């Protein structure tokens, strides 16, 4: 007790106390969301990880005993591999298409006058005002055999318009759904670029293209990386879009995982697949932070 009092009386002790008190305050303010995340995110996540090492009983129950790696071994099976690679391919393709479409658009928006810029940004965000599921169903109408999209494509002689329940329809839906997530970070990155740098490059004998290649593109990279992660991660685990617009022949990770839990009643495999998806997303996020940290 005496020691404690002595410590308190010294100024260094007071300073330490103040720091501790501040940290405590922060903790209490954050407590509600900490509890929320704990109950609804961390505990379920723990379950998924635990399930992935658990045993499936004959009746399809998941029993938390005889811990094993069977579910992970099954990830090597040809069927599972096919689904994983297909999902990866679709996610990469979606990301690349989004990037190609979004970059010129973000560039255009960020070079407009502020008023027009804001109008265009609101335009980009309008789709968020209605539910994603409903918007995906709207594509189903547009893509149906006598739907608007189908008829326009066929009238214009652009080939087979009936793509509903095929991979192109899924990619179309994913690009549609995730394009804003690519545009917004790209816009934020490009908008921040000081245009006198471009003038500087032009003054130093760079052509318009070279100035873009050497100055604008590298400086917009944080946006490219952020947008790509934001599109790639949800595309890889997408469930709604493939379920509504895709066929049932070529399932993707999202629906395959649901199948394991619901139809096949194989909790461990469903869980190990989920861990796989999580792992891929985690790698993506880590790349983002590493790259972002280097550039910002």
């Amino acid at each position, binding site marked *: 007790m005496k020691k404690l009092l002595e410590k308190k009386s010294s100024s260094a002790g007071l300073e330490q106390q103040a720091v501790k008190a501040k940290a405590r305050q922060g903790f209490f303010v954050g407590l509600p969301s900490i509890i929320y995340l704990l109950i609804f995110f961390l505990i379920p996540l723990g379950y998924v990880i635990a399930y992935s090492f658990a045993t499936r009983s004959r009746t399809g129950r998941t029993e938390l005993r005889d811990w094993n790696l069977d579910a992970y071994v099954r990830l090597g099976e040809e069927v599972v591999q096919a689904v994983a690679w297909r999902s990866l391919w679709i996610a990469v393709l979606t990301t690349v298409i989004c990037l190609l479409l979004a970059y010129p658009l973000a560039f255009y928006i960020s070079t407009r006058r502020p008023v027009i810029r804001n109008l265009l940004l609101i335009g980009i965000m309008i789709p968020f005002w209605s539910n994603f599921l409903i918007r995906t169903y709207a594509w189903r109408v547009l893509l149906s055999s006598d739907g608007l999209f189908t008829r326009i494509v066929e009238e214009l002689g652009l080939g087979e318009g009936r793509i509903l329940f095929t991979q192109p329809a899924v990619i179309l839906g994913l690009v549609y759904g995730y394009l804003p997530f690519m545009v917004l970070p790209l816009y934020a990155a490009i908008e921040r670029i000081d245009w006198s*740098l471009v003038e500087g490059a032009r003054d130093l004998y760079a052509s318009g293209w070279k100035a873009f290649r050497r100055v604008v593109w590298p400086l917009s990279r944080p946006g490219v990386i952020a947008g790509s992660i934001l599109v790639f991660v949800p595309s890889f685990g997408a469930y709604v879009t493939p379920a509504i617009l895709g066929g049932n022949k070529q399932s993707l990770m999202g629906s395959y995982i649901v199948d394991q839990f619901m139809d096949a009643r194989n909790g461990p495999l469903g869980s190990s697949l989920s861990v796989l998806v999580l792992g891929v997303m985690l790698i993506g996020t880590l790349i983002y932070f590493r790259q972002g940290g280097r550039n910002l």
Partner: protein
Amino acid sequence: MNQASSAVELKNVVKKFDEVTAVDDIDLTIGDGEFFSLLGPSGCGKTTTLRMIAGLELPTAGSVLIHGEEMGLKPPNKRPVNTVFQNYALFPHMTVAGNVEFGLRMQKVPKEKRSELIDWAINLVEMDGLSHRKPTQLSGGQQQRVALARALVNRPKVLLLDEPLGALDLKLRQQMQIELKNLQREVGITFVYVTHDQEEAVTMSDRIGVMHEGKLLQIGTPEDIYERPTTRFVADFIGRSNFLEATVASESEVVLSNGDRLQLESDHTVGESVAITVRPERLTVHKRGESSTNQHQIDGVIDSVVYLGNAIVYSVSIDWMNLEVRSSETSNSRYSEGDAVTISFDPQYVSVVSG
């Protein structure tokens, strides 16, 4: 200045932004190897003029010639000039060396030659040892040097500088003024320097062009501009000046508003109201009644005295206005408030400008 030795020529150059005329019919010839300053308050069109030389803006009318060659619609990368920007515009994702190398790479200079030139330029601005730093790791003065090196490494025919010292503090600015001038002599490149700081322009320039509201009012050596301003704006903008309202009586005589007649040559028409302008340090104060060698005299009374250490500034009331007199005589013959004095001046230091 003949065609062969002119570095930059502007012929009837006009630049309009929508309906606003930023540059209004400018004619200007800058000689090869000259240190030329465009001086004027902000918004006078000096930066726009510089940007038109660089090709970052195109003139609405008129033409820009560099070393006799018509620039026309040539983009900046096709012009033999480089710019030091006001905010330096250093590439934040490149090192100092990378920034300096940029222009050389764009011109496809071979690698060995590049590193040789980079070393030369970095050494020229005394930035040795810092070439691997990023611009954000440099102080303002260092960034400024990199911007200079980045432009000079290309050995442009003309270097354009847009208020390059504006962001630096006073001490550093004064030091850089001297360094810039020495640098210009050393490399022998024509400098076109934009500034709103009259002291900077006077210190460094061979010639100065004073701009106001898009117009080039006067071109001349710093001495011309300071001692023989042709307009009231120039006299007022550069240094301090007294203006006495007057009327032209004849080719060699003007009448002050109190009726005093002064023998001054001017090319203004008879009867025109003008102002005669004289610098505070060109006025001399005497005790009233003491004889002076100067024939031009005005009686007045000392109104206030400000001691500046190296000079004394008197405000002298002369009937209808106050005149500012700056005297470097700080110990002997000091006057105090209320003293009756006579102010005299040498007509060679007086200019007649439009009222």
